[in-house]
């Protein structure tokens, strides 16, 4: 999964989609995941990175990442063509 190329991310967690005019807010961990997606990281790589950075386990991040990716898909922030 890849984030749309034109999505703007601010360091404070503000997300803007210039294509639709929609804006979103994310928490710091959400922002770090969006940045990972911008860099083209795979889901597995994101999971490993989060486990390395945060006090969590594989099971928890697997469930939560699944939910988060579903949400950004639902918000039309992902690129289907790639």
């Amino acid at each position, binding site marked *: 999964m890849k984030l749309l190329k034109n999505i703007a991310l601010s360091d404070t967690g503000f997300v803007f989609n210039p294509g639709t005019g929609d804006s979103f807010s*994310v928490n710091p961990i959400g922002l770090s995941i969006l940045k990972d997606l911008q860099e083209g990281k795979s889901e597995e790589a994101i999971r490993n990175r989060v486990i390395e950075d945060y006090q969590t386990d594989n099971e928890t991040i697997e469930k939560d990442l699944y939910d*988060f990716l579903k949400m950004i898909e639902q918000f039309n922030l992902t690129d289907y063509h790639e």
Partner: protein
Amino acid sequence: MKKQIYERPLIQRINTGMMNKFGTKTEYAPVSHIDGLAVKDLIKEYGSPLFVLSEETIRNTYREAVRAFKTRYPKVQFAWSYKTNYINAVCNIFHQEGSWAEVVSGFEYQKAINNGVPGPKIIFNGPDKSDDDLRRAITNNSPIHIDHLDELYRLTELAEEMNKRPNVAIRVNMDTGIYPMWDRFGFNYENGQAWDAINKIILGNRLELIGVHCHIGTFMLSPQAYATAAYKLSDLALGIKKKFGKTIHYIDMGGGFASKNTLKGSFLPGADTTPTIDQFAESITTALLNAGFTENDLPLLILETGRALIDEAGYLLGSVLANKRLSDGRRATIMDFGVNILFTSFWYDHKISPAQEFSSYTEDTVMYGPLCMNIDVVRSHITLPPLRKEDHVVVHTVGAYNMTQWMQFIAMRPAVVIIGIDGKSLIIRNKETIENIESSEVMPDFLKKHELASGILK
């Protein structure tokens, strides 16, 4: 490098909707302790979900209500409304504080007797009183509040049969300017039914009319309605004195004072809109004092306040069973308590606080109970920080009606503990067991055995 504290990744669309000049408060300030005891320790000791009552809050609320009325009127008596919460330990706190009992069934009457309340201090209300209930109340000299003519006639027959003169009051319904007007209990003031009943009682000369009573509604947000009711009951009492030379000993204003809960659909939270007990006291006592009673004839003012005296003292502790995402993207959190034990969630938007620290990020959430029923919704919209499985929450202002209207449905009812003035927790009602429930069931012999044919699943 030290790892950061984990929080579920969140993304929320920023909606620019209609402006709200009051703003919306987010309930994410954690409530980790109740009366000094940690929520997680209470759950560890007694299980989850768990009802918790604060003895200190009950006593303080009661004393505050008594002060509000007694500083304005010379003769005041509270009678604890059993149906609001009839766990015996709760009733006895009120009885220790000096409250009588107000009961609405033979079952509640027996509870009051078992709690040691003397008969004359048990007010017997309600439309359902069996002959046995009435006989017992007559024998014990309890004030019987007559609800309908059938009861009046039956009571007259029983008085003759027992050769006793029961103490009675009539229950009066009336227009107090509020909607909906409650007219199903008692006799109507405006159309003359109340006077008809009074005439029958006094001229029949078998029953001793000692009081007049009303119960104008529930969760009343208008103190003025009580002033109207007090004025109309005073008018009846003064009219009885004038017509028959008979002094009415008490005026019972019933219950109905609102608590600090927020009714569904309210624009503002209950804590900001509910009148104070002083406002109710001011309305009622001013009406009574200005009604025209002589000093010697001032009736005793009885109050059957339930909800406003216990709601704030009750908490429900619960835990997260699961999180999920609904088809429209809304977050849903499933709790281990639902409408089965939190019956009041049908009409309140209960305040719910997480019991542990969180960051400032929140998400709109639907809070479901654990029942396999679509109606099991505790809050249809609530803004909460991301809750994880097994996190705890505290539901506020649940002391009234939940511990009497709860259902043994799908799951069993949880324990109730009280945190005493000494800061220690004690069980006042054990968690239900399957033995409790099945002990009332009877299995006929021919249904004791069955043989299920083996199918696809071995």
